């Protein structure tokens, strides 16, 4: 009897149990919260999920490529919002493309340093973060940037009940997952994250795979920046503050392996949903921001510890 029980618990990894149990508990807790199913809170959650979700898709690529995370993605979101607003004078489509390219380029540059020079990814991202903030402060003078043109009003609308940004986020997540599962560069990224040396010996161009992962992360972060700027009608360097932490939290909660080489973009998106629901429930129940930080931190700590247990041999 106890033997059978032991076998069942052993078969399911602790991380899986934690996830299943935690997810169920969270769902019940959310449904018991008055106002959770109201139109207003659902819409506001969808928007929040979409903004953080875009960054999470990108962060997932960096994690899966074996480089843990980039601390510069939040600043990239902000900088892209500024670039988007400033270049709106050239028209909406060019402005979107410019902002996406801008995000991809500055993040790919981190990928070059990490991929070719094998520099420590976290330290490189700290340097990049500082550079982005410094240069942006110089160029914007710390000012908010208002649109140099219009035509993005429909960004604030809804299509089939759902906010515009939710559709774009869904597209972004599906595209990211498709790249990972169905393309060669996607498999190269997974192999590189799984075992960099083995990838090299079977002929994967490891630096290119790393750079591709970073470029994708930059582009999805820039997308978040564009959507945020459109929603708020202006761009500034604080707009994406903290997004990198929420994205890495989502990556971890969703169960993308922090050591790289395993996991999927969609799992990261599930992580975003969990984190956003926790925040919303706490807010609806009247807990202050300090409680939101505390609870999110505890959840994260639990997930990290469960992951460590699961990989110990």
């Amino acid at each position, binding site marked *: 009897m106890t033997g059978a029980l032991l076998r069942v618990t052993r078969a399911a990894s602790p991380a899986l149990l934690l996830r299943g149990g935690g997810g169920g508990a969270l769902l019940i807790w959310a449904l018991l919260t008055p106002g959770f199913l109201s139109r207003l809170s659902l819409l506001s959650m969808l928007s929040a999920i979409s903004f953080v979700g875009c960054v999470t898709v990108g962060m997932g690529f960096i994690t899966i490529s074996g480089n843990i995370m980039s601390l510069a993605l939040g600043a990239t979101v902000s900088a892209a919002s500024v670039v988007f607003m400033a270049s709106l004078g050239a028209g909406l489509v060019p402005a979107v493309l410019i902002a996406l390219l801008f995000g991809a380029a500055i993040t790919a540059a981190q990928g070059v340093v990490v991929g070719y020079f094998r520099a420590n990814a976290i330290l490189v991202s700290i340097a990049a973060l500082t550079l982005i903030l410094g240069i942006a402060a110089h160029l914007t003078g710390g000012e908010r940037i208002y649109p140099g043109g219009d035509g993005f009003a429909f960004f604030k609308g809804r299509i089939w009940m759902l906010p515009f940004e939710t559709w774009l986020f869904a597209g972004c997540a599906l595209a990211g997952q498709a790249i990972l599962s169905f393309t060669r560069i996607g498999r190269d990224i997974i*192999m590189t994250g799984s075992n960099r*040396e*083995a990838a*090299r010996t079977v002929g994967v161009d490891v630096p290119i795979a790393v750079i591709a992962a970073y470029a994708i992360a930059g582009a999805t972060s820039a997308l978040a920046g564009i959507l945020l700027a459109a929603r708020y009608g202006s761009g500034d360097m604080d707009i994406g503050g903290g997004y990198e932490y929420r994205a890495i939290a989502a990556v971890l909660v969703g169960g993308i392996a922090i050591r790289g*080489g395993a996991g999927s973009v969609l799992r990261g998106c599930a992580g975003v949903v969990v984190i956003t629901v926790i925040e919303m429930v706490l807010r609806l129940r009247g807990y202050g921001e300090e409680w939101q930080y505390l609870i999110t931190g505890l959840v994260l700590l639990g997930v990290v510890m469960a992951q460590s247990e699961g990989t110990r041999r």
Partner: protein
Amino acid sequence: MLLSARGIGKHYGPVEVLRDVSLSVRAGEIRALCGENGAGKSTLVKIITGNQPADSGEITIDGVVATIRSPADAQKLGIALVSQELSLAPNLSVLDNIWLGNETVPLWHRRRALAERARAALDEVGLEGLRLDRQVGTLGIGRQQLVEVARMLTRDARILILDEPTATLSDVEIAHVFEALRRLRARGHAIIYITHRLGEVFEVCDSVSVLRNGALVGDAATGAIDRAGLISAMLGRELGELYPPPRAAPADGRPALSVRALAVPDMVHGIDFSARAGSLTCLAGQIGSGVTEALRALCGLNEAATGEFTIGGRRVPLRSVGRARAAGVRFISENRAGEGIFLRLTIAENLLCGQLRRFSRGGLLRRRAMRTIAGELAAAVAVRPARLDVVAADLSGGNQQKLAFGRIIDGAMPGVLLMNEPTRGVDVGARAEIYRLVRRFCDEGWCVVMASSDLEEVMGLADEVITLYRGRVVRQVGRAAVTMHGLLADITQQQAA
């Protein structure tokens, strides 16, 4: 009997890993412990050294029942393990390493006395000339291993367990280890010696215990058993010939590969050789002779390599894995976990990892075709296709190495297969399978070049042998002219006794 384990049984969950196993060793005896991977050797060692509790059975030391609940208990009883992964701190001195973690050293101690005892222990293992202030990381692996043994001696270990100490050593270093073992035996230590190299069992051990599937299937004096008997005890069947016969017809003589003035700074000083299609050429040399570095350079894995490398008359650029692969070069590493296999990816992913280009149309992958081919590749290298979704980490070393062979079959013309110690850490049954695979690649027209420091393997397998010493070629000889004596003399540059 110094150490005697009787009726040891052990389960991991529902799996019985040891069943009524008995093992004893006298003072002044070296006992080999043999068995395939998974036979239960390491579990038995873990029980004796207090890293795992036994479910049943008892261990006596000097006839007294001993309770070993932790590694500390084992240490107090004089049991010490030298494992493959050395536990030395490379940046500390020999002296510091010997006393590191020794709980009998008081906080306030006389360094002089410690130095004297360390000296005595080093002398005992044959390291008379070694200075105590030498940094351990600057020693060769063989001498590091002996330092580790000396460390055990300062802890008054009377029962030494050595787990594959020679797996990564060159022949000269192995000779040193053997000399030290014989000396320890003469002083009345009891030694349990785990090895995959069967030659060593007969060379240095007095007796041998064989485990198979968790049960003791053989216990004999080494004089009373022969090599074939030992192998069939380990496998539970006749192995047949370990080495497949060479091809009856000689290779067509067409030089497939030619290397001129290949150099790697400090390691390889301009070597020339050629190898034929359809034949197996061995680069034989000790660690430090440059065989490994030369091979890696040809794969494009060394960024500082220079020289001229041609395949079928066409020049292959060095220093680029991608371009070497495009020219038909494939590589199999000895370091499976480090660079050979994606341990956390599945068998199917491992088999296809080098050939995604075949399935890619405009960057998109054709998943169904990939699945089919992965099944075929698994079958081709005798891995059960039903297990395609099993993670590679769950496979034995031999099966992991078979994946490395499987991924080479990519529909391209037979090219050049470069292998570095492909059977390191692989047990004898899987080893025979790998040798047959290698021979099959030769028969299909591949030009196979293998670096090996295992002379027995070189003798048994090679069509042609190139010996290296300190980064230079000594000789290139055909199979018929190869002798163990000649090889040993070549790679050590000493007259073999």
